[in-house]
């Protein structure tokens, strides 16, 4: 089934064997509340790694039955992250989620050379799935959060993550637009040059499972009328499923403009590690948290 709205993920997951979400540093009500709600919605099972005493207290306050969860006692935040990662490496969890620990410590746990979640030479990145009421389907975009200025090889990795995410959402042959400020191929602007090179790589079968075209300006990515006006011949332009951003600023502005000015909803995950990892913050709405957990679970499907 092809997902065109974020909530459709919930329907898919509800009827399947549950993936196990491991919350690292589940020492606050936001984290425990999110895990509990996700479980109630039938999206995942949960493991809470953190200060057991605090966890039990919070459960009591929030009227959550703690026996529904495996609780692993580790009061220190850095060690709690390491423990959560170890559980996943031992096959006792499928998804990682950040709790009450700062992002640096969380990421360091994932990136740890010996005990982390990275395969050799893997690129850690971030994928956001946007549901904008003004677009006829989801937009899968990256990297809006982790890699500031990806080089060509990192862009290829991000492109592949966008494609994998699309596949996880049932989009068989996603249309991937490589964003720049114009459609002109020129060596003078790195965004345009890299986009052309990646397009050629896809033509050569070095990037599989998608239609890829770039450079394309934003209007050419998502607006068929602009494509017609400009006379661009492309099997991607005007109907993109995925958009690769040339740098973090453009991607970050894009998704925030979508959410703040166009009522878009979103789910987001950290990709490139052995399992999808969730990085939501306390400021995120419940919708965003649930969509992110569901997205991670969707991406984990098909993996043992």
């Amino acid at each position, binding site marked *: 089934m092809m997902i065109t709205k974020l909530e459709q993920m919930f329907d898919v997951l509800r009827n399947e064997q549950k993936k196990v979400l491991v919350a690292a540093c589940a020492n606050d009500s936001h984290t425990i509340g999110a895990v509990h709600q996700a479980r109630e919605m039938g999206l995942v099972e949960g493991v809470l790694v953190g200060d057991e005493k605090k966890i039990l207290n919070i459960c009591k306050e929030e009227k959550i039955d703690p026996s529904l969860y495996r609780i692993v006692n580790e009061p220190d935040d850095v060690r709690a992250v390491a423990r959560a990662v170890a559980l996943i490496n031992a096959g006792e969890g499928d998804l990682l989620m950040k709790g009450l620990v700062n992002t640096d410590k969380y990421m360091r746990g994932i990136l740890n050379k010996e005990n982390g979640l990275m395969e050799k030479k893997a690129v850690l990145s971030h994928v956001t799935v946007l549901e904008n009421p003004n677009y006829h389907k989801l937009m899968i975009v990256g990297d809006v959060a982790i890699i500031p200025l990806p080089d060509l090889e990192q862009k290829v990795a991000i492109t592949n993550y966008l494609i994998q995410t699309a596949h996880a959402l049932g989009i068989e042959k996603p249309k991937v637009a490589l964003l720049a400020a114009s459609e002109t191929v020129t060596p003078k602007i790195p965004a345009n040059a890299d986009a*052309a090179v990646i397009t*050629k790589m896809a033509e050569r079968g070095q990037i599989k499972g998608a239609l890829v075209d770039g450079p394309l300006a934003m209007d050419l990515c998502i607006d068929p009328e602009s494509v017609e006006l400009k006379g661009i011949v492309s099997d991607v332009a005007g109907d993109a499923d995925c958009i690769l951003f040339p740098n973090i600023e453009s991607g970050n502005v894009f998704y925030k403009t979508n959410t703040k000015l166009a009522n878009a909803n979103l789910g987001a995950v950290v990709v490139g590690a052995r399992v999808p990892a969730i990085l939501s913050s306390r400021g995120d709405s419940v919708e965003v948290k649930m969509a992110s957990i569901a997205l991670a679970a969707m991406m984990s499907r098909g993996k043992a």
Partner: protein
Amino acid sequence: MRPIRKLSEIAPFLKEKGVLKKVAVACAEDMNTMEAVGQAAKEGLIEPVLYGRADLMEQAAREAGVATGSFDVIECSSEGEALGQAVAAVKKGRADILMKGLVGTDKFLKAVLHKENGLMRPNAVMSYTCALELPAYHKLLFVSDTAVLPFPDLSQKSAMITYSVEMAHKFGIETPRVALIGASEKVSPHFQNSIDYALLSRMNVRGQITGCLVDGPLDLFCACDPESLAIKGVSSPLEGDADILIFPSLEASNAFYKGLMRFAGGELAGLIQGTEKPVVVMSRSETALSKFYCMALACLVAES
């Protein structure tokens, strides 16, 4: 016009059109030059104008067995004067083609490249394209750059494509297929040529390089052999049927054409590119036939 598929078809094609071009020969003081000029004149393709020392030119004509009675002969007291006058004659339109005689190639090209008095088009790149006729290929192959640019960069490669395409158009090939030759069809950031090629082929798709189909990187088999293309599973708009081969370096292209001349019965005709009018530089080691083809090619290109 029906495409010209053999070098031997050029002269008859021109004769039928009644083409007769004036060729200014700088320092026509050696037997080789005189032979080439003599044959083209005898075939009725050209009217030579010889610049040089009269005594040396007479001697060269005697050795070559060429009757110069109908030729214009302009007595010049020095090499520099002969070269200057020959270039000026072409520049001012009194002759259609410039040809190098017994004068160093460096000096000759310097005169062609001279900013005010030379023959280069504005912002042009001096390069070289030759047309190769091979018993083992079903049509002519245009190859660049076999003589001038050691390591062409992106903009020089782009110029080589433009000039070679213009030449192919003169042969009646409406949409020549341009293969950008590498050692494989893969695009890799570790090989700058493959990146240049990816950009150039995408420039063609975006309509920035017109009048031709461009694809690369391709290895020689994928460029010129549909079967190899099919076996490798590479999809190329050229379909293994290239008209033009663009090489990444002078060594590669030079070894390519000389190997074919020496071992595979090839014949060729070549011209300096980027000039306002055709400029002929022949090597003494070329066969009499290749020299004649070279003159015929210059006449074909001079014909607008």
